[in-house]
C-alpha cells in the first residue's frame, strides 16, 4: 500500500483486515477493537494518526488476531461511511452478485 503522502491528509482513512481464525472482514475501531461493520470503524483524518493506528493494528496482526491490516480510503455522506474503491466496497458488503450473502445480508463470517 505504498501511497504518496500528498493528498493523503485530506482523505479519510480507516484500517481494515481479516480475522485470522475466521477470515471475516473487520475494521479497526475505538479502543483498538476489531469491528464487523465499517460503521463502527475509527475514521482517521490525519495521516499521522492513521499511521500510528496502523502500527497498533500490525501489533494485533503479530499477535495473531488479524491478518495483514492496511489503510483504505473512505468517503462520508448521508451519515454513512463507505469505501471509495470498488474492491473495498465489495469487501464491506459481500459479493455484488449475491445480495443474500455476506455483511449486506446481515451474515457474520
Amino acid at each position: 500500500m505504498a501511497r504518496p503522502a500528498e493528498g493523503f491528509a485530506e482523505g479519510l482513512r480507516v484500517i481494515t483486515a481479516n480475522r485470522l481464525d475466521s477470515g471475516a472482514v473487520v475494521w479497526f475501531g475505538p479502543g483498538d477493537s476489531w469491528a464487523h461493520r465499517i460503521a463502527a470503524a475509527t475514521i482517521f483524518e490525519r495521516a499521522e494518526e492513521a499511521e500510528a493506528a496502523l502500527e497498533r493494528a500490525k501489533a494485533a496482526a503479530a499477535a495473531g488476531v488479524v491478518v495483514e491490516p492496511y489503510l483504505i480510503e473512505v468517503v462520508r455522506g448521508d451519515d454513512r461511511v463507505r469505501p471509495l474503491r470498488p474492491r473495498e466496497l465489495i469487501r464491506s458488503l459481500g459479493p455484488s452478485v449475491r445480495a443474500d450473502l455476506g455483511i449486506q445480508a446481515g451474515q457474520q463470517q
Partner: protein
Amino acid sequence: MTHLQAGPYHQAGQYHYDEIDRRFLAERVEQFRRQVERRISGELTEAEFRPLRLMNGLYLQLHAYMLRVAVPYGVLSSAQLRQLAAIGRKYDRGYGHFTTRQNLQFNWIKLVDVPAILDDLAKVDMHAIQTSGNCIRNVTTDQFAGAAEDEVVDPRVYAEIMRQWSTLHPEFTFLPRKFKIAITGSPHDRAALAIHDVAVRARRLADGAVGFDIYVGGGLGRSPFLAKLLREGLPEADLLAYLEAVLRIYNQYGRRDNIYKARIKILVHEVGIDKLRQQIDAEFERIRGPKYRLESAIVDAIRAHFAPPPFEVLPDEVPSVVVAMTGDAAFARWVQTNVVRHRQPGYASVTISLKPAGGIPGDATSEQMEAVADLAERFSFGELRVSHEQNLVLAHVRRDALHALWTELGKHGLETANAGLIGDIIACPGLDYCALANARSIPLAQQISERFADPERQHLIGELKIKMSGCINACGHHHVGHIGVLGVDKHGVETYQITIGGSADEKAALGAVVGPAVGYDEVTDKIERLVAAYLDWRLEGERFIDTVARLGVKAFRERVYGPAA
C-alpha cells in the same frame, strides 16, 4: 473405510484408494491440522503459514478463506459429489464454484473449520493437496477422457500417475512459481494444452506403443505464451524421469527475483527452446535409469482402475431419440450442443451446463450437486466430470435415455442448451470474491448471457467462446477466448479490455485487443456489435473465430469502434 465400495453404483472410472492411500491422506490431514494449530499459537508467522496453507488449497480472499478442493483430472464419483454438497451446506453457504482447473472452490470457509472439512473430504478419498502454491498443481485433462470417439490413449491413466508422482514431491514443492500440467490422448485438444507449463500429448508411436509429445512453457498471465514442442515421441517408461529433468532445470534456473517472470514460460523465452532442450536432455540422460523408470507393470496396475464401465451392447441409432428430437425443439437443441458422440455404440457424453442465462458461471448449489450425483448414478455409472469450461459432464449415457435425463435436468435448472455457445461463458470469480481482482467478471457474464438468452439466437450464432478474467492472472483464460474480456483497474474504476481471435484447442492462438478499454456498462454492447459484424460477414459454415481469422481484427475494430479507433 469401505464406504465408497459399498454402493452398487461404484463403477466410476477413477483411481480407487486403498489403505495405503488412505493412510497417507489421513496423515496429510493431521499435518495440516497441526499447521493450523501452530499458526494460531504463533509458532508460525503468516509469512510462513501462507505458502503452507496455499499448498493445501487455502486462500484468504475478500470475505473469508476460500478452500479449493482437488478434483483429480476432473473425475468425481456420485458419492464424492454428494459429500461436496454436504460440506457446502455444513461449512459454507450451500454452494460451490467449479473452476477452469476442474476443481471446486468453497468461498466462505473459516480457518478453524478447515481440518474438519479435510476430514470430511478424506472420508470420500478427496483432499485439497496442491491446488495452489508454488508446486505441481492438479493435473488436468479432457473431460471426455475414456469416452471420446477420437481418443487414442486414455489420458486418465497417465494423469493419475503424474498426480501420484507429484504429490508432496520432496524436490519440487518449493518451485519458483506454480506448475500446471495437462494431458490429452485425443487429436482434438479439449484440455487447452497450449496454455500449460507442461503439456503432454499421449499418442501411439510407430510401433503401436504409447508415447508422448511433451510441450513446455505455455501460460497466460501478464506475458502470455503458447507452449512449444520440447520432445517428440518420449517412450512411456521415460515419462517420470523426463518430467524430473524438466522440473529440476526449472527449479534451478527459473527466475525467483520477480513473481511475474518466475513461470517456466519466461525461462523458455529467455533461454530459448533449443538451449533449454539441451539442458533438459542432459539432465534426463543423467536421471534416466532403473530407479526412475515407469515400469509397465505399474502402468497396467493403474490402468486397471480405468477399465470401461459395463456397457451394454446397443445399436448405434436410437429411433426414440430422433423421434423426440423432431417432436421437441428444446430437446433437439440440447442434443445438438450438449451431447457428443461416444466411442461405445448406443452411448453419448453429456455436458450439463452450469451457465443458465443470468446465472453465475460454474456455481452449483448443494441441491444441484446432489441432483447431479443422483443422475450420474441413474444414467452414467455413478461417475461425472468437471470440464475446464466450468461445466459438469456425464460421460457414459445411453442414447435412448437422453430424453429422460434431459427431463430430469430440467427439474433442477440444469437443462441449458448452450455448451460451446455464447452463453457458455468462462468467468473467474473476479472482484466479487477474489483478493487479487481488479474488476468484476461474474455480473458481466450474467449480463451477456441474459442479453443472448434466446436459445434460437444462440444456436444461430453458433460456436463462440467468451472467456473473462477479473485481472491479468487470467484464471478465466481470456487470452484464448474467441472473445476475451479482461478487467483492469483504471484509477479505481472497473474497466475492460476486449480481445478477439484467441483459441485454446489444437489451433491455439492468443487473442488481439480489438479496441480501447471500455467501462462496465459498455462491454455487453460491444460484444453484441462484434457478434452482429460476424453474422453479417460470415460465410457458410464459418464460426466466429473463422471469420475473425479470415477478415482480421482490424475489420472488427473499425466496425465496432469506428474507423478512427
